[in-house]
Structures are given as C-alpha cells and as structure tokens.
C-alpha cells in the first residue's frame, strides 16, 4: 500500500511539527494573553489585595467595626485611626474592611447565582427551542423590563430590608441577561456538527447541552459575571446610600457611604465618605479591567 506508507510519513512530519508548534497549549495561550494585558494584571492584583484584606480584616485591625466609642468621635485620620472615626467613634478603616466582605459577597454572590440560573435555563431552552424557549424568553423579558428600583421598593415594603432580600432582587433582575447570553451561544452551537453527531447517538439532552456544549459557551459568561459583579456592587452602594439596601446595622460599603447624606458630614468630615468612595470606585474599576482582559484573551477572533 503505497498510500498508507506515504500517509505514515505525513503523520511523522506532522507529529514533529506539532511537538514544536503546539507545545504551547490552548489554555496557557489564554493565560499568557491575559498576562500581557497590563491593566488586567494590575486590576487582578488590586482585586486580590482588597479581597484578602477583607477576608483577614480581624487580623489587620484591632478594632470592632460595630463598637461605639463615644470618647473618640469624628476624629480625623491619624496613626491610630487610618481613615479616622465616624460620628459614633467607630474606626472607618475597620468598617471599610468588614464592609468589603458583605459588599463583595453580595456582588459576586448575586452575579454567580444569577449566572447559574441564567445558564441553567438558557442552555436548555436554547438547545431545545420550541415552546420552552418562547416561554423562557418572554419571562426573561418581563423581568428585564421591570425597573429594579420599583422592585426593590416593593419587596422591601413587603418583606423588609435584609441582605438576602437584596440578593434575591439582584438575581431576579440579573438572570435575564445571563440567560440571553447563554441562549444565544447555544443557538449557534447547536448547529455545530459535533452536536449533531452526539444527537445521532441518541445521547440525552442533559448530557449534550450541559456537559458537551456548555464548556464552549463559558468564556463570554465568565466575562459577564465579572462585569455584573461590578454592577451589583455599585447598585448595592447606591441603594444602601438611599437607605433601601442592606439594613444599616450591617456594615457595607454602601451603608458606610450613607453618612454622606448629612450635609454637615459631607462638608466637614471628608474621611467618613471619601476613602470608602475611592475603595468602591477602585474595586469596580479593577473588576471591569479583569472583565475586559478576560474578554480579549478568550475571544478567538483576536489572535496574537
């Protein structure tokens, strides 16, 4: 068989080529592209520092974020109190650290949970199509067209203010975007021939769409998770500033900012709201940089 021996020779040549050119694996290409993006790397570093600082808050600060100390009210930043103290003598730096825990938990948690809901519905409906898809699409439109603020007011007045109510609202209003993203990816993936091949074996819908197709839809979803984390943190800050978010006794970035409603505080005690405002902005900016970096490095149409 002349052809097959020729074929083997081709294979050998190709093998040699592959061992050299393909020694960089696909995954590491994504990592190296991400690492080449300076902003994303800086973002990732600051992001990590803020998260670690919040997690290890008790080790970094000797103060209790809740303890009122009337002897040291409204002190300007000093060596003892890096960000000064607030109107009841609580250390602002400590409160920013502990507030970070809750704010980041709300932001990241809502983003991940709404992604889980959105993906679960979007993958199945996008792959199956038909009436399931139509219903899911209409339901998501209803949720997305409902103004978030009104939903918050409604739910707060019905169920009262709490951290979990807030997260529930974020998930209710946030899953629609993720759903649409997952669905759109699925619609294009389901025409791919490897999916048709799996169907020709009669594999179950669940195996095909969650196990085999989902990994190929994940990268835009990851990007979206980071971006909506930033958005939820901002929304939490905004709502808490208005007094509609997390109950005031729990320190969150938004609740710390809440003191700036008082014109006296705003004018005279900049340290009570300035530093926390900067932390929020820096954190959100970092998350957005990470998201952009992820998008650029996972986008296959941007090679090199």
């Amino acid at each position, binding site marked *: 068989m002349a*052809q*097959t021996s*020729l*074929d*083997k020779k081709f*294979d050998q040549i*190709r*093998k040699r080529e*592959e061992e050299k050119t*393909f020694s960089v*694996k*696909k995954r590491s290409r994504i990592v190296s592209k991400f690492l080449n993006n300076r902003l994303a790397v800086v973002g990732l570093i600051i992001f990590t520092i803020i998260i670690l600082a919040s997690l290890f808050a008790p080790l970094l600060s000797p103060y209790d974020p809740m303890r009122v100390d009337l002897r040291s009210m409204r002190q300007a930043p000093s060596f003892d109190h890096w960000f000064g103290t607030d109107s009841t003598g609580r250390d602002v730096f400590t409160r920013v650290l502990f507030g970070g825990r809750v704010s980041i938990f709300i932001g990241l948690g809502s983003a991940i949970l709404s992604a889980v809901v959105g993906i679960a519905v979007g993958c199945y409906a996008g792959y199956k199509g038909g009436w399931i898809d139509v219903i899911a699409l209409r339901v998501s439109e209803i949720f997305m067209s409902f103004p978030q603020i009104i939903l918050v007011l409604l739910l707060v007045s019905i169920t009262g203010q709490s951290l979990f109510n807030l997260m529930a609202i974020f998930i209710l209003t946030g899953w629609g975007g993720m759903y649409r993203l997952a669905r759109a990816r699925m619609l294009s993936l389901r025409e*791919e*021939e*490897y999916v*048709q*091949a*799996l*169907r*020709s*074996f*009669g*594999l179950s819908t669940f*195996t095909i769409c969650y*196990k*085999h197709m989902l*990994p*190929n839809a994940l990268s835009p979803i990851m990007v979206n998770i980071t971006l909506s984390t930033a958005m939820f943190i901002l929304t939490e800050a905004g709502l808490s500033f208005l007094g509609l978010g997390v109950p005031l006794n729990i320190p969150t970035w938004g609740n710390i900012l809440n003191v700036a409603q008082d014109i006296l505080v705003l004018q005279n005690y900049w340290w009570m709201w300035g530093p926390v405002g900067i932390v929020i902005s820096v954190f959100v900016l970092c998350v957005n940089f990470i998201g952009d970096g992820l998008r650029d490095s996972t986008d296959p149409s941007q090679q090199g």
Partner: protein
Amino acid sequence: MKKEILKLRDFKVYFPVKAGVFNRTVGHVMAVDGVDLDIYRGEVLGLAGESGCGKTTLGKAILRLVEPTNGKVTYVSKENDETELTSLEKKDMDPFRKKLQIVFQDPHSSLNPSFTIFGSLQDPLKKFGVNSKEERRKIIGDLLEAVNMRREYMDRYPHEFSGGQRQRIGIVRALCLDPELIVCDEAVSALDVSIQAQVLQLLMQLKKDNNLTYLFITHDLSVTEYLCDRIAVMYLGRIVELCDSEDLYKNTLHPYSEALISAIPVADLDKKTKRIVLEGDVPSPVNPPKGCPFHPRCPKAKDICKTEVPTLKKYSTNGNEHYASCHLIDLPEISK
C-alpha cells in the same frame, strides 16, 4: 442477490418559513420532496446534486437528526426483520442509532474543542454499554490505529490536529459502535485534494473490513464514478436519475445529469466534450416551478415539461435497471 438495508418511501422533509411579527408560517422549504430509494446492503450509493438540493437534509432525516415531514424509512436487518424507523418513538430509536451513523462535511466544527478525543467519544460508548474505561480506551485506540493514527492521539485536543486527521477522527466516531450504514456527507470535500485521496481510500478499506454500506453524498460527480456502485442524482429535493454508476456516465438519460457530467473537467485534451452550461440559478425550494422542476433551465424543454410533473420511471440500459424522471426519454418503459 441484492438485499435492502434501508427503504425510503415518499420521503419528505419540509421546513416551515416563518415571517412577520407573529412568526406565522407563510410557506415551506421543500428540502426533500418525495424520495423513493432503496439502499442495498454492502453497496456504495452516491447521492449527487447541486448545492441546496437537499442532500444533507435527506441524510440527516434518515438518522432523524431532522424530523421527516412525511413518508417511511424502513430498516431491514441482516435477518430480514423490517422495522419502520419513522414511526418509532425517539427513545426506541436507540438500537438503530448504533447501526446508522454519519460522517460530516466540515472537519472544523465536527469535533468538540473543549474535550480530548477520548473525552468526546466516550459518552456514546458508555451509553451503549461499554462500562469499563479500559475497554473504551481500547476500542477508540484500535479504531485510531485502523485509520492510520496513533493510539496516544486520543488524549489530545482537536485543535492539535490537521483537517485530514480531524476527518479521520470523525470516521472513528462514526465507526465506534460498529455501524452497518454510514452516511458520508461530503466527507472529503473540505480537504486538500491530496488528502482527499487518502481519506477516500481509507473509507473504502474500512468498508471492506467492516462490511459497511455507504450513502455517499457529494456534489462532485468526478469522484463518484470510481467509488460508487450506484448513483442517485437529486434536483430540488427529488431524485431525477438513479442507476449504476457506469451507466450514468455512458448512458445518461436525464438532461440535468448530462449537464452535471459535462461540467466535470477532463484531463484528456483530445476528447472534446461540449460543456452544457445551465442557465439561471437553482429555483427556490419554497416555490418550485410548475411541471418538471428542471424545465426553466433545461436546454431541451418542450411544452409538456411546463405543465406535467414527470415521475421516476424504470428503463433498462446495458441490461441494468435505470430510473429517470423526464418526459423526453424515448426508451421503452419497463413496468415494475
């Protein structure tokens, strides 16, 4: 004695055309419009025709990757048991899915980029009862060797392979459950010509080794002559000519097949053939022309062609069965 493996009767696949705000169905794409076809065990049946004539749809609908609108597909087992596939529930299809497989056209979308070869091939094996991992690895490894690749390749990702290698992996996937009929949907047309020959030869070798039957879909009539035992020519969702492959080239009956054959480039400079250029585009499968669907482009069309739809009639050329649907054939029709 020829024995059928698959019988198609009045097989139709229509896709609804939706339009407007309310997504109402305003018409149908008649992708496959009444095909009667027997595929015999052990043969290579070519299915040729221009782009968009419904070849892929026919292949997919046989495997029920697309739901047929009408008609019957009957599978005949080695023991002559007949099962009508079109009336089965989806879940009762499983034993037959093993027997019917497909190799796709595009080697770039035919493998899942997120899984290794083994990772994406093992689920079908698991489903059909190969429970131990060693056994699954052995089956896939053996098949990789059968298509002239190395066993170790099963732990690589698709992006590490060339187009020809991917196509061979696609063949491994089709073979992994020991099928009887494989639909090869333009299995080589995306490949480089030199690689095409290799893959074709491999397919023929595998056919011999595993007693396979092929439905070989192609738009290139120059390949089919050497590979296929019989050829069916399709136009606008219908079969217009069906005969032994030799007869198709020597005793062409349908003007459409004639035009397709005349378009094959010839290497022999002395042998001048007059190339028949078809005028116009393929008519829309939503509104096929009245009468013979080919008449607006047919160089020989007569008045009768504009009004009456020709049926597929049986003739005899060279002592072989020869089916064609054209009003203008002056051979005697053979009654069935």
